[in-house]
Structure formats: C-alpha cells, structure tokens
C-alpha cells in the first residue's frame, strides 16, 4: 500500500516549483499519510536542468513493501506515482517487454508511453496513479471499481492531488471546511455523490475515470464502466456453463493474487463470500492465515460461523474480540482515517482488525467485498424485484405480504398488509423511475434529517441530493432494465461512496494493508453483469450462482445461510455503561451548537431517550446516533481542533 501525492502551482499566484520550496509541502503531504507506507520519494517533472522552462509538477510517493511507488524515466522525463496492486503483472511485463524485476510504477510508465490511457484496459486489480507525460500533462487515473482512493483540489493557486484528503490540508492546498451539501447527500445515500467529499474543495476522482490537467484546464475521460444493459445479458446461459466460467475466472483471479500479493492473509466473516475466497485460496496455497472480528453481543457476532468455516476449510484462523468500549474509543480514529461521516459503526472494529492483522506480519488481505453488489446478495435487489412484481398489480393484497418474508427481523410480519402497502408502496405508480429501487432505503436513511438544525436545513435546501446523484449517472443509465438500474445505483452510491472508501480502503490503509478483492476483478464484474437474472436471484434466493458454487467449497450451513449484514454496536458503544470520554465533550449541547449541523436540543433529548432504553434500539435510531457522532468527530478533528502536523520526513529525490 503506497500513498501518492503531488501538485502543480499556477503562476503567478503561487511561486514556480523549486526543490527547496516543494520539499516541505510534499513532505508534509506524505507525513499526513505515513500510516500507509514508508520512505517517501519525490521528483520534479520535467527536471529543472533539462526542461526548457521550470518544472511544472511535483510528484511524491512512498514505497509499496520494498518496491518504490515512484518512477521517473530519464529519457522521456515521464514520471509515474502508483498506488494499488496489479495482479496480472506477469502478463503485463511480458506484453510491454519489461524485465521481471520492473516495479509497477515503471511498468505503468512503459505502458502509458506506448498506449496512453488505453493501457488501463489491460490492468487487472485495484489502482490509482498519476502520470506526468512527455507533453507536460498530468493524468490521474483510478480503476473501474474504485478500490484505491484519489482526491484532488483545483484552485487559482494550482492543482493538487493525494491518496487522502488530509494530505491536501497538510500541503496547504486547501483549508478544511465541512461541505454541508455532501453531508446532506450522505444522510440519504450514505456517502457523497458526483465526486464530492465531506470537505469543500476536495473532490474524489470517480472510479473508472481519468482526469487530465493540460495547461491549467481539467478534462475528464471515462476509461471503463460496467455494462448492465439488457443486450449484454446472455439469456440462454445455462447454470452449468455459468458455474464453469465462474470457477475458471475465480480460481484464476485468486491464484494471481497468491502469486503477486506479498504476505497474504484473508478476512473471514463467516458469510458465503469471504468463505468462498478463503476456501479457494487455501486450496491453492495449501496454507492461509485467516482473521475475523467477534463482538460481545450475539446479535452482531458471527464467530460461531467463522470457527465452523475455518475448521472445515482448514485455515490457520485467529479471532479478535472487539468490545463495545473499544468501538467507542476507536470511532474518532476511524473517522479520521475515513475522512467521512458514517451511519454505522462497523468501520471502528474494522480498524482494530486491520491493525491487528498487520501486527501478524500480513501486508495484503483477501476479502469477499463486492460479491453482494455484483451477484445480487443485498436485500435491496429482492426488494426491487418484489416491488416491481407488486407494481404490476398494485391493488393486490397478496403481493405486498411477500415483504414480511423479506425482512422477518423487522417485525414486519406483525404488520398487516395495509401498513406494508403504505410503507413499501411508495413510488409504486412509477416503476420506471430512475430511483425506483432505492426510494425506500433513501427515505429511511433520510429520516435522520429530522435531527438537523434549522440553519443546516436552510443552507442545504436549494440543492436536492437526488438531482446531484442523478447528474453523476451516464446517459445510458436511463435505458437500463430496472434491476440494471438498481445495481448501478448500488455500485455508484453504496459501494463506491461508502463501503469501499470506508471499510474497504481507509481502514485497511490504517494498517498499511493492501486489499485484494477477487469479486471486484474487472473480468468477474463483467461476467456477473452478463448473467441472466435467474442466476443471481432465483425467487427470493439471493446470490443463487454463488450459493451453487459454494456447494463445492464450503459446508452446507454456510452456502445455505441467509445474508447476515456486517454491523457493530452503536448505542451500546457510545451511550452504554462505559462511554468513551469524547462522547461527553463532543456530543454535548455546546459542541453540537458549535458544529451547527444537528439540532442540539433535539439530539440531547434523543440521546437521553436512548440512554434509558430497556430494549435494543431500532436500526433507524442507532444510525441517527452514529451519523450525529461521526459528524461531530469529523468537524472536531479536521476543522475545529486538528492535531499538530506530524514531523515531515526527509525526501529521497529522484
């Protein structure tokens, strides 16, 4: 795992580049991300003594393991800063005629010099990189799924980019200020959309996109997108054919990771997806350390399944128990790493897990992330199918009853059908609407808005989060079938703006771990998109094909097991018997008034209610509390009281 950073000033507002003036800014940027790697390197491009004018770009990167993540080609003055992992390095080295010891940054330089942006079509794995080409253009590129982050800021003084937003602040390219619209978006979609971040002026390069900075102007190019159109679906594909293709693809992907990823371990959640990854990897490697997290409370804990799978597969398994108290104590650090407010507390135990795994000498981890999105494991897909079925006969009193089967744990079975109609019948008259699949979820999370302060509501009222999200969708979106739209929205909102940046990447980065995601391999994602609907969702059986595939690899209780969402305690961790000290100060009325996002009076009453609750809190209440707490933490640690910057490391100049 490397961090990359760089900037190009725009004269005359900021001084032209020289090593002496560039060094402190670059070093501070890398210091802010020091958890990701070591030994920072830097370069000015093109080199001052060789360029006709002055250098235009300052590039910096750390090492990935023993391999430098920055490469400068002396002949062409091209430079590449690379973060991520390409698991088909062997084939790429052969294709571009590079010797075996070539670093990934060097390979990318060679590939980009030969084919330009088109070279990314050959890259498999996750990546975010920056290239300064011979024409003095700066390119930023991110893989299609979005497992490696890249942020940028563009102002009158120049352009800057980094793997994390805090580096933009550390390099003085941006002043930290919360973006209220982005917070408003997160309260509906769980994360900011359209490339916004939670900070004003800091933007995320969207997955599958390339940005080109040419003579001070930004241009965006799309490199890859998943094709979810009806025409792309192989309707005639048989179950056996699909299983064969999946087996070949999946084993190939896992074996590539085994060959290329250093010090590989795996996360084992006890669910189908990570069990499959672990089983296939263990079979091929003969040995695999696996890790999981356990909780004190049975309603969150999956350790029984984890033990069973680990025993059945035969991995060398370790479990970390994370207590409610530890979750509360870790939440501030999780927010600082994520640079994001979040509706669930799961990133905190994940942070503990990542650091603990790193202590065992692990540098890369396999995970089952992505399977639920691409093979349709989430309830949102079933919900959409049910609502679509119901919309064809809206007055039916039988069809809405299926929702009680979909969410048995929500006590819906106690609700009479007329109530289900009121709740799930929203938008039923417009089954072709762009947001048909996600209306219920977004309305549910949007209920957090009742805790917002009047000032916040007023300041954000003129921009609709839905309109902003809609702007981020490509024109082809409108032509997709309902389930294609559902998957696209799930990928663009939940996966890429919430799960991956928070759980999939930044917590891993906190332990300097590189994530390896076989289910997000581009070929696997494309294969899943081509599957007929019946192989993903058969009746109400989710991830049908993966369950069938699971029969070969994991015990029946795992492949038959219904989806169990990974969640962690919130109310118990923040307002329980031993609340962390920060709760008292940052969730006080005064602190809430200072931040101004939430209504201090209402939230104080709300927390008082939660403190005296005799039964487990509702999901909606727990999410509202987490949103409130993490927003307060975000404001405190970035805007109101940022920590002193870590000492800048010496740079190794290329």
């Amino acid at each position: 795992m490397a961090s990359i950073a760089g900037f190009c000033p725009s004269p005359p507002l900021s001084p032209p580049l020289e090593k002496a003036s560039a060094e402190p800014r670059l070093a501070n940027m890398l210091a802010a991300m020091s958890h990701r790697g070591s030994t920072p390197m830097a370069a000015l491009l093109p080199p001052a003594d060789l360029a006709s004018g002055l250098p235009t770009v300052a590039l910096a990167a750390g090492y990935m393991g023993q391999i430098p993540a920055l490469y400068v080609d002396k002949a062409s003055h091209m430079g590449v800063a690379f973060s991520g992992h390409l698991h088909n390095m062997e084939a790429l080295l052969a294709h571009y005629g590079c010797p075996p010891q070539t670093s990934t940054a060097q390979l990318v330089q060679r590939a980009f010099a030969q084919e330009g942006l088109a070279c990314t079509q050959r890259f498999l794995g996750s990546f975010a990189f920056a290239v300064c080409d011979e024409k003095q253009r700066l390119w930023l590129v991110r893989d299609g799924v979005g497992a490696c982050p890249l942020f940028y800021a563009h102002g009158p003084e120049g352009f800057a980019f980094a793997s994390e937003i805090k580096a933009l602040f550390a390099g003085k390219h941006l002043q930290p200020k919360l973006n209220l619209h982005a917070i408003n978006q997160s309260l509906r979609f769980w994360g900011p959309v359209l490339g916004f971040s939670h900070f004003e002026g800091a933007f995320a390069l969207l997955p599958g996109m390339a940005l080109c900075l040419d003579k001070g102007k930004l241009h965006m190019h799309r490199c890859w997108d998943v094709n979810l159109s009806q025409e792309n679906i192989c309707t005639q594909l048989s179950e056996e054919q699909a299983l064969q293709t999946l087996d070949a693809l999946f084993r190939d992907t896992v074996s590539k990771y085994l060959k290329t990823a250093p010090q590989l371990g795996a996360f084992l959640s006890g669910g189908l997806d990570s069990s499959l990854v672990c089983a296939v990897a263990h079979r091929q490697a003969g040995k695999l350390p696996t890790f999981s997290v356990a909780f004190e409370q049975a309603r969150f804990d999956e350790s029984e399944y984890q033990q069973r799978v680990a025993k059945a597969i035969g991995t060398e398994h370790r479990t970390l128990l994370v207590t409610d108290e530890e979750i509360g104590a870790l939440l501030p650090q999780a927010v600082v790493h994520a640079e994001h407010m979040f509706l669930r507390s799961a990133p905190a135990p994940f942070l503990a897990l990542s650091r603990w795994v790193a202590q065992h000498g692990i540098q890369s981890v396999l995970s089952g992330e992505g399977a639920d999105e691409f093979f349709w494991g989430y309830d949102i897909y079933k919900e959409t199918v049910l609502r679509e079925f119901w919309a064809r006969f809206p007055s039916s009193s039988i069809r809405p009853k299926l929702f009680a089967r979909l969410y048995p744990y929500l006590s819906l079975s106690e609700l009479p059908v007329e109530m289900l109609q009121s709740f799930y019948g929203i938008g039923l008259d417009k089954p072709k609407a762009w947001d048909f699949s996600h209306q219920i979820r977004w309305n549910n999370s949007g209920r957090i808005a009742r805790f917002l302060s009047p000032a916040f509501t007023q300041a954000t009222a003129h921009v609709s989060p839905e309109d902003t999200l809609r702007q981020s969708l490509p024109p082809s979106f409108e032509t997709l079938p309902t389930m294609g739209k559902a998957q696209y929205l799930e990928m663009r909102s939940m996966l890429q703006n919430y799960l991956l940046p928070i759980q999939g990447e930044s917590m891993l980065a906190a332990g300097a771990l590189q994530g390896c995601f076989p289910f997000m391999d581009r070929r696997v994602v494309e294969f899943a998109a081509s599957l007929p609907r019946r192989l993903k969702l058969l009746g109400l059986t989710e991830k049908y094909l993966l369950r069938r595939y699971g029969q070969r690899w994991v015990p029946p209780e795992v492949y038959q097991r219904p989806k169990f969402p990974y969640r962690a305690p919130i109310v118990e961790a923040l307002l329980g018997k031993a609340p962390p000290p920060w709760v008292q100060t940052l969730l006080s009325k005064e602190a809430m008034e200072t931040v101004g996002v939430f209504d201090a009076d209402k939230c104080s009453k709300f927390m008082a209610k939660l403190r005296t609750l005799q039964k487990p809190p509702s999901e909606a209440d727990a999410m509202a509390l987490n949103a409130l707490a993490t927003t307060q933490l975000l404001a405190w640690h970035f805007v109101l009281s940022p920590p002193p910057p870590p000492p800048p490391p010496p740079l190794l100049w290329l």
Partner: protein
Amino acid sequence: MGEPLSILTVSFAFVLEKTSYMDSIRSTIRSFISDTFFVDDFEDGASFLKSGTIDSTGMMELVNFVEQSFGFKVEDNELVPENLDSLDNLVQFISRKKS
C-alpha cells in the same frame, strides 16, 4: 319556549365537550410523536409512513402507546392505515373506540 332552548344548550355543550376531548387526544398523540420520533412539523392529515414521520417499527410503538393511554386493545383487523396512518385518522379512531 324554554325547553327547546335548553335542549339546544345541552347538545351544544355536548359538541363542545366532544371537540375538546378530541383536541386533547390530538395533543396527547402529537406530543407523543414529537417526543418519541423527534418530528415537530407534520400535518394532521399526512400519512406517517409515506411522509417518513414514523417507520414500520415506530408504528408498533405508536399502537402500544395508544393501547396503554386510552385503555383499549387494537384488534388485528383494526391495524389499517384508515385507523392509524395519520393524526386525523388516529384521533377519529380513538374517539370512535371510546364512545
């Protein structure tokens, strides 16, 4: 001429009493909803579920509250939006049950 007048007075008083009774139900329910679900602005006629004022688990809490505060049981066949899914509907339903 005295008698009809007194009948008028009695029925007028009854209407007054009924209105104020319904008002008190309304304000009891409204403050329960504000205190429990932290929503201040909701219209008397708006669907709780559709407007997001109350979610599906909240409806159960609301029914519990109604049963305990007004001393009757809500039968399964009464758990319908016409009875419960707005402040207006709920007030009507409770006053029907109580009369």
